[in-house]
């Protein structure tokens, strides 16, 4: 019975994925991509990875989908010239190459040992030292804390890259175009209804992340989605990127993470080490600061570079 279910799920995922590649209109392809991201959440649940399912649904489907959608709306009417498509022979070669890569990966999947070598017992054994109950979060915040810190820095660097694309007159200004505010009552209603629920659920995911699936990324991505919804409805306006509190919110999470990591030299034995008795409260403090920074960074990455001159 599980086999039949998985087969239906995989067939659907592959069909939608094929559609996003084959669709003629970009807008339609992006819709397919969002549907694909939401379906992948089901796949991750079947792979016993609810933390990843939450991340994939929130970031892979939701936020990336809106990012691509914004791009598609801005590029509407810009269609590649028919001669921009590669010649049939090249397409055939590309298809052959892709099929070869896929076949090689498939062979690897079939040949790899099952059960695979695992670090699960080690992760579980060191979990009590963090005071957390969710092994994935334990790995993210303790064992691989350095990678998680890097990732936060990557997010901020990407945002700096996006901002640096601003035109001169909009330098330090407000992200996105000024849209004529057509008030759409249904959208405004939704933007008043959903965010309070979304904020509660986002905070719940952050809180539950200590012991159950969830955490700063998932909570932050949900908060970002709610912020974007309120932006679309015109209920909130973005601050200028030169605003001091905005920049503070962006770096608060990574900065606190780094500070506590550096303090690890003194209060524990190494960089990013936590003293055992303090591990859980420290991790939760870091995560609370991170969730705000992640939500702000994700929302601003979708909003794009400043395009309106700063208020002065």
């Amino acid at each position: 019975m599980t086999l039949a279910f998985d087969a239906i799920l995989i067939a659907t995922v592959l069909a939608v994925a094929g559609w996003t590649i084959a669709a003629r209109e970009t807008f339609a392809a992006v819709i397919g991509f969002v549907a694909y991201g939401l379906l992948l959440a089901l796949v991750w649940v079947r792979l016993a990875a609810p933390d990843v399912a939450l991340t994939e649904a929130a970031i892979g489907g939701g936020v990336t989908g809106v990012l691509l959608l914004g791009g598609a709306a801005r590029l509407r009417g810009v269609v590649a010239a028919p001669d921009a498509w590669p010649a049939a022979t090249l397409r055939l070669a590309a298809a052959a190459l892709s099929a070869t890569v896929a076949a090689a990966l498939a062979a690897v999947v079939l040949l790899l040992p099952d059960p695979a070598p695992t670090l699960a017992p080690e992760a579980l054994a060191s979990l009590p030292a963090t005071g957390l109950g969710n092994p994935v979060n334990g790995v993210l915040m303790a064992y691989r804390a350095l990678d998680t810190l890097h990732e936060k820095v990557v997010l901020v660097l990407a945002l700096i890259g996006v901002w640096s694309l601003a035109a001169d007159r909009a330098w330090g200004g407000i992200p996105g175009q000024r849209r004529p505010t057509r008030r759409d009552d249904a959208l405004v209603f939704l933007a008043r209804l959903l965010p309070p629920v979304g904020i509660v659920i986002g905070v719940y995911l952050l809180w539950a992340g200590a012991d159950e699936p969830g955490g700063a990324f998932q909570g932050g991505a949900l908060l970002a989605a709610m912020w974007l919804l309120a932006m679309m409805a015109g209920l909130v306006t973005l601050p200028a990127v030169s605003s001091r509190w905005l920049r503070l919110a962006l770096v608060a999470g990574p900065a606190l993470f780094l500070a506590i990591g550096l303090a690890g030299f003194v209060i524990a034995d190494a960089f990013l080490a936590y003293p055992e008795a303090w591990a859980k409260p420290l991790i939760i403090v870091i995560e609370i600061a991170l969730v705000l920074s992640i939500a702000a960074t994700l929302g601003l990455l979708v909003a794009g570079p400043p395009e309106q001159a700063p208020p002065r």
Partner: protein
Amino acid sequence: MADLLLAAAGFVLLMVALGLVRILRGPTVADRIMAAQLLGTGGIATLLLIAAATGMDAAIDVALALALLAAFASAAFAYGAADPDDPEADRG
């Protein structure tokens, strides 16, 4: 009982898959926008049934997030599709 729940999950997923194929083909933008809405109901029902069948309570949290995100995505689609061809699309 678990098998029956799983069978129900498979059935609902099959319905979602058929609907999804129909909707994505269009012909209008409005048809396609319904994709997220369809996953917001059928996808969640599937997820909840799996959670019950396999005893994986965390899947309910995923369904909770999915409910919000499907509504968010549908709203974003409608917002993007309703966008009139901005004449000043390039100079802000």
